[in-house]
């Protein structure tokens, strides 16, 4: 029993600590970071999505295609949500060759901006932080 208690405690300390270990995924879900600066700043960020087809690139509006709860998750840059969203856009329109999601945040924000681009053919994802 003592071993099980020790293992549980180790897990309870290691899991939130892993948030602070690089690479920074920005995923605060299991890190006990209630009311973190990052969480609050993320909410102020704006999202833009671009879809590239054979000859053109168009910007799409997210509100009619995604529930507001998922828009919040995208603003927080949760990797699994970003990836699934990009994949869903590729799947929705076969003519789309590339989807890019951009997050821009206000000046002085600790959240930081990023872009995530999915190549629909190769499924390769290109993540970039702090786009200017």
């Amino acid at each position, binding site marked *: *029993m*003592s071993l099980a*208690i020790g293992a*549980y*405690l180790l897990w*309870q*300390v290691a899991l*939130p600590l892993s948030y602070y270990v690089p690479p920074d995924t920005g995923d*605060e*879900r*299991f*890190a*006990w*970071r*209630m*009311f*973190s*600066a*990052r969480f*609050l*700043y993320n909410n102020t960020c704006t999202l833009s999505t671009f879809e590239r087809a054979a000859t053109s690139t168009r910007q799409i509006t997210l*509100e*009619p*295609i*995604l*529930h*507001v*709860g*998922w828009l919040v*998750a995208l603003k927080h840059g*949760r990797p*699994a*949500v970003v990836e*699934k*969203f990009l994949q*869903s856009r590729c799947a929705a329109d076969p003519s789309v060759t590339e989807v890019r999601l951009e997050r821009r945040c206000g000046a002085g924000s*600790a959240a930081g901006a990023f872009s995530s681009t999915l190549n629909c053919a190769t499924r390769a994802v290109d993540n970039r932080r702090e786009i200017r």
Partner: protein
Amino acid sequence: MLDFRQTVSRAAAAWDEYWFGAVAAGRPYLLVRAVLVLLAVDIWALRVPRFGYGMDGFNVAHFRWLDPVQPLPSPGFHGALMLGIGMLAMVAALTNAPRPWLALLAALYTYGWVMSQLDSYQHHYLISLILIAFVFFPRLRLHDLAAPIRPAHIGSRRQAQSAHPGPAMLSAWAYVLLGVNLGIVYAFTAAVKLESGWRQGEVLQRLKSNSSLLARAQGWLDGLGTSPELFWSMVAWGSVVVEVVLAIAYLLAVRQDARRTRWVRIAVTMAGMLAIGFHASTELVLSVKIGWFSAYMILFAAIYLLPGSLLTRLTQAVANLTAGVPRAWPGDRARAGLPHALVLGSIAAGAGVAVLLLVVVGRSLDIPGAEPIAIVMACAVAGGAVLALALRRESAAARYVGAIMVATAVMWVAVTESNMRSMNFDLLAKEMLQRGHRQAAAEAYRKALRYAPAEVARRATERPAR
């Protein structure tokens, strides 16, 4: 070498004493019941209905392995799951449910948020840890608290202090572990506030609500020549200090009942009052959307940190209040020598009323999934009652039937008195409008108005139609 062995032996003894030493039995007893009641009402009042689940065919679970193996969640599935979890929690609180029941509750609750990142409240993860700990709590009844508990009655590792003149004591490692877990949570939340956004007070300024309390305090300090930056920084640092104190207090609190040192008990009691004030002020001063997180933390502070004598009096009061109830129950009448047919008839009639109540309430809630889960629960009540009577478990049958009737009534009140239906139908109307589904939007908006508080509905209908 001998010294090393002695040191190891002492450390092992201290470790065992910390985790398996005695705590006042009233603490785990009250904690399980109070948290389960709060959880049930919290779920019914705040977590249904949710229309985002499965909308546009999009969902991402909290763990990647779950997405390929689970069906796409829907509002109906989520609603049914939440209402059912609330029922399991409330009935468990009222009946001293067995461990498998608590394990099922913990598993379903955890799946309730794990299935979609639409629910990413960190305190839901905390509640999962709490429910898992409850599975391993000692199962206690009120009469266990009235007298010192004999070791044979409570299991091999439990150490009773039969000569102890105060409250009944017992070993409860899961209770201790949960307390330490809460200390860890406070430590990490304090660490977050050491980041620059907090230290400079920027976060607090964003969080402050329209409440004039902080503004008044700031104005008063302004008058003393303190800069706003310094004021906010002081408030932020104050939060860090409080949370560090609470982290340490939880680590000490789990041993306070067995310690003879008075200063530990005094310090822990003061920390308890600090915790209650801290979380109450968070609700009053800051505009934070954290559901009933503060209520849970206040409850934990009251049970873990306040003096055992106070909790003993509370449990005694509960005992006195409920002392007459079992005698009035049909199951106990059987023991009192009433005709068996009368007892069976009473329980069958009670089960019938519970089934009817469930079906009527399920139909009236207007929450996706409410009706199917009410029918499932009604079938479970009917089947359970028949089985219990066949096995001659009249007392248990009466207890569960009574608890289900109470839980159903509380569920109805919690859902209908909450503004969640109105808010979420309103949100659904907006989502539908953005997708060009005008008819669905109008229908959702009508429901939002129907369930809105009277004043809000009146103002909305007076607004010129757009």
